[in-house]
């Protein structure tokens, strides 16, 4: 406590030059903080995007080059029974067609599946309900559409129970909307604008239907399933996918041939994170060189301080200050300089990241761990570079020191 008080009061006496000395540390710490937080921000941005992509589930493919076998819809139910930790499973049949109302005619991308395909819609329902198992069993001509696509098609998102004519190839059916999924505000706004301006770029929409509508009334093939999706809880995606893979291999008897493939984003995310970590670390290390230079500045100014205060050191020693006391006094002083520099640096780094944020699509993240680390580094910097001048002070001969003017 005494040391701290004396350090602060002596720093106060040389405010200007101490601040100039701190600049090195301030810049060093500020750049380290900025780089780390941009790195963190990038990582969490990439992870969220990959998370969003993979929240749609994991796709399991049968490689047609390695096997000509396939699953049927009952096999999916078997997999569901064997792997209960799975949140959902569905086949997925795609088709393109036209959606026609009395006002509009749009191209439409149609995805047919089981009710579990509802898990694709991470934003939830806006109105109505998703199609159900009984819709699948009866092959009902019902569909689910997103808010923005409803606006494109009907110029309103209150479209539950409305219907339109769905044409695929030369066949058509009157398709009734049972539910509307939620869209981002931004997308809804864009859709409204597009309708108002009749923009050509917005002539396409997507709907989800029971797969039986496509295989039944429209006569599309879908009995031979060579690709399906499973939905899992985030933490256990990998192991669940592996389990599903081995169950599938057993079902179609292709063990160990690599015929069943998992398409997941977790492995991509892992690789991406590793690269980002290395890049962040390398750049942060380069920034840390300025800490070294800053530390040398502190060593320099402390050496000057020790020389200027030779007489004071002599007085203190003649009054009975031990070597260790003088040593700690000057070490505290240099550590306080770098600590204050470090804190200002953190503040500056924070401001930099706010500025950087204006030009980037993702927010930088300042983690408390990084702040703690940087504070520790700056104290350590001062202690390390303070050793030389402090030792010089502590080893002074009191008679020589007192003789100084």
């Amino acid at each position, binding site marked *: 406590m005494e040391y701290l008080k004396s350090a602060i009061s002596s720093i106060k006496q040389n405010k200007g030059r101490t601040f100039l000395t701190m600049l090195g540390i301030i810049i060093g710490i500020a750049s380290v903080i900025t780089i780390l937080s941009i790195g963190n921000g990038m990582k969490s941005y990439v992870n969220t995007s990959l998370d969003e992509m993979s929240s749609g589930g994991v796709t399991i493919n049968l490689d047609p080059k390695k096997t000509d076998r396939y699953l049927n819809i009952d096999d999916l139910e078997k997999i569901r029974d064997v792997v209960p930790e799975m949140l959902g499973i569905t086949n997925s049949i795609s088709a393109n067609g036209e959606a026609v109302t009395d006002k509009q005619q749009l191209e439409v991308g149609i995805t047919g599946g089981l009710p579990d395909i509802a898990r694709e819609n991470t934003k939830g329902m806006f109105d109505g309900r998703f199609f159900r198992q009984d819709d699948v069993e009866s092959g009902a001509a019902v569909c689910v559409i997103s808010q923005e696509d409803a606006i494109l098609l009907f110029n309103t998102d209150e479209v539950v129970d409305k219907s339109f004519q769905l044409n695929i190839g030369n066949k058509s059916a009157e398709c009734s909307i049972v539910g509307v999924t939620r869209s981002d505000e931004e997308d809804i706004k864009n859709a409204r604008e597009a309708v108002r301006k009749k923009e050509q770029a917005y002539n396409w929409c997507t709907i989800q239907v029971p797969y039986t509508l496509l295989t039944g009334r429209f006569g599309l093939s879908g009995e031979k399933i060579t690709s399906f999706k499973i939905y899992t809880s985030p933490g256990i995606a990998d192991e669940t996918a592996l389990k599903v893979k081995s169950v599938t291999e057993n079902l179609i008897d292709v063990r160990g041939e690599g015929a069943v493939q998992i398409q997941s984003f977790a492995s991509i995310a892992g690789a991406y994170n590793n690269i980002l970590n290395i890049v962040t670390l390398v750049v942060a290390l380069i920034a840390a060189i300025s800490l070294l230079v800053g530390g040398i500045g502190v060593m320099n100014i402390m050496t000057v301080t020790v020389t200027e205060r030779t007489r004071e050191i002599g007085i203190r020693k003649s*009054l*009975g200050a*031990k070597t260790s006391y003088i040593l700690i006094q000057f070490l505290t002083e240099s550590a306080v300089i770098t600590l204050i520099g470090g804190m200002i640096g953190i503040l500056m780094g924070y401001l930099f990241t706010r500025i950087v944020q204006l030009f980037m699509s993702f927010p930088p993240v300042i983690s408390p761990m990084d702040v703690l680390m940087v504070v520790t580094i700056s104290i350590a910097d001062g202690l390390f570079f303070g050793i030389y001048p402090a030792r010089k002070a502590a080893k002074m001969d009191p008679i020589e020191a*007192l003789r100084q003017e």
Partner: protein
Amino acid sequence: MPALVEIRDICKVYNPGENEVRALDHVSLNIDKGEFVAIIGQSGSGKSTLMNMLGCLDTPTSGKYYLHGIDVSHMSDDEQSDVRNREIGFIFQGFNLIQSLTALENVELPLMYRGVNKRKRRELSIAALEHVGLGKRMTHKPSELSGGQQQRVAIARAIAQAPPILLADEPTGNLDSGSSKEIISIIKRLYAEGRTVILITHDPGIAKQAKRIITISDGKIAKDEINENFTL
């Protein structure tokens, strides 16, 4: 009962060999508790070396220095610091106050090094400053005090920890005659209160104020006499 200060055959030699300088040449000296001694000599006589020796700031080339019967002449730096802190109150010619600290903080320093707790430290320091008549100037920095006042702060610092020996090195050297008289009278009062005072000076007028006068010249004790004219 050993003497408070006992110096046995001390030599201090600088540049041993060709151009050696014998600052102290086989000096022996006893000072008892409660004495008031002046050590007088011209510059270069060795009196400063003797004062450094007595103050445990320096170690002799040969010979022994017993303080309270304990040999302090060949201690480590830290041990010497400890002896200085406990046994000796310094009063310097140049006051040697730390400019960035207030009068009170300056007086507290040796107590801090001794490890006295904050409350006790403050108490003792205030008492010492009041003792030298500076009760109302405690929060002043040295630069805001006159020379005489600064020397009184230094005296307060020397007596606050109640050391057995007061070692005053030319205490009036930087002062005008008025302030000098004041400082001498304070030193005499401290002696009268029972403290052992060793006064180092080149000025016979100052030396005359002491009860025992030791004259040193060429590193040897030339005279050691009782001052018959001593008055308090």
